């Protein structure tokens, strides 16, 4: 069972996505910002990271840069979910494997995750 790390400072967004992914059979861990996401990754390396952009302490962009810079985590697929920074993220395919604009359909999210995991 694949482990997905959901990173979002917005509590409801994070837990709702976690519920949806768990219903799809994934194992899910959540973190409320990039810094806490790094702490979680230390404990257990996820198979995929879904992250928001604007967050306190460490943004999704900074998180991706940190993960890519570390050989241990450089290959973990990162899916960015954003309301407004989709453009910034799409200009950095080196950091993000996929970008989904908010608001998104859960089906599109699940399909994207499955595609990245295969």
């Amino acid at each position, binding site marked *: 069972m694949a482990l997905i790390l959901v990173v979002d*400072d*917005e*509590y*409801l*967004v994070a837990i709702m996505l976690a519920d949806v992914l768990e219903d799809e059979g994934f194992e899910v861990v959540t973190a*409320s910002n990039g810094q806490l996401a790094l702490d979680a990754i230390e404990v257990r390396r996820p198979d995929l990271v879904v992250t928001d*952009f*604007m*967050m*306190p*302490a460490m*943004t999704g962009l900074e998180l991706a840069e940190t993960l890519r810079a570390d050989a241990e985590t450089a290959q973990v697929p990162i899916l960015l979910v*954003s*309301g*407004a*920074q989709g453009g*910034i993220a799409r200009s950095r395919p080196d950091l993000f494997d996929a970008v989904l604009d*908010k*608001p998104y359909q859960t089906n599109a999210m699940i399909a994207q995750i499955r595609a990245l995991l295969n």
Partner: protein
Amino acid sequence: MHEIQRLRSGIGGLDEILAGGFVTGAAYIIQGQPGAGKTILSNQIAFRHVADGGRVLYVTLLAESHERLFQALDGLAFFDRARLGREIAYVSVFQTLRDEGLQAVVKLLRRETKRQEATLLVFDGLLNARDRAETDFDVKTFVAEIQGQAAFVGCSVLFLSSSSVRDISPEHTMVDGVIELDHTLVGVRAVRQIQVRKSRGSRAIGGLHEFEISDDGISVYPRIESLPRRDAANADVATTRLASGLPQLDELLGGGLPTGSVTLIGGPTGSGKTTLGLHFLARSTPAEPGLYFGFFETPARLRAKATALGIPFPEGEGLTVLWSPLTENILDKLAGELLDQVRAQGVRRLFIDGFGGFERAAAHRSRLIEFFASLADQLRDIGVTTLATWEVREIVGTDVTAPAREISAILDNMILLRQTEADHRLTRSISIQKVRDGHFDASAHALDFAYGGLVINGSLSRVSPVVAPAAID
């Protein structure tokens, strides 16, 4: 004197009642019930601050998602998605508050303010912080710490709070200013009002001011009687006279309307008030611009009336027509539109048809006297000669009294139009009730409609015409 640095809201009326804007580095509470407009107001201020070169940290403590907030703001002119995540960052500290408490939030905000290099911090959800606090003291400490560390780096703070309107919260003592937004019913009509309840170290114009929310965001209309007079320095007592448009009326007035004065035409419906105004405006020229500011007759009906009576209507050649239908108007917005137009066009002849349109727009009728007094003062200060109508109730009758005692007192001159019935025939008359500091013919004269407009005939008085002494005010 030391000039206070200001963070301008960019909302003209709000900066005006705040004596120039928020004080830079100070902390304010913006409170109001849900739906009062706190979120729109704070975002509008934030985007204006960004446009002015500032950087904003917008912190939420609510469970509502930022995306829903952005969707709600999408239709508003000031909102710009391209700024998100750059000059303005939205972060949620809901989980920090829930898991670690107020102290952790304070610490996080200090780091985030620095990281974002924020010069404005908006903290949405003070009520949630209060719920999490164990005592009032904790809340006050929290507010004091946030504002203290922000002030240290020169960052201004807006705390948004959903407290009920009449609530005086303990944290009010900790901030520099408290602004309250209210959404209330007056009769069946919804009225939005803003009030500066506290303003430390900066004079603010207190009391309730109406505001509205449109696609442009929030517009605030300060009560005109509460504002300092702008053109008072220009005002001098005029000694010249301006032709009313009816030579016979000029004779009764003792040589025309005193330049820069305000004249009320009182009379029942159908007595010729608007027609008198058309005569006045017929003299408008590009060098002596006229303005029709009305509520009751559409521009088309007005044109048709002038044509039917054979009175020139020089629209576009000196005459401007502004018509505000009697829908739910905001009193001070109307006054602002009127004064702006008069100033912008250099209007010399103003006809207001009529004061009743302002009266209908008033959410609080008790302020009407002060409102009209202020409006009249400002028109005099500008130096425009004004004719305004006031409809009196009695359609037919001999004992028509002055419309409203207090209203008459604040106007310079008064002309009364009456209709009396004798031998089953309606007779119209015109009489001058008052000309400030001037001699006038006080007897009633017969008034008739003819092609070409109003015709003033002989005195209806059996005694020889009386000349009233100059009114002593």
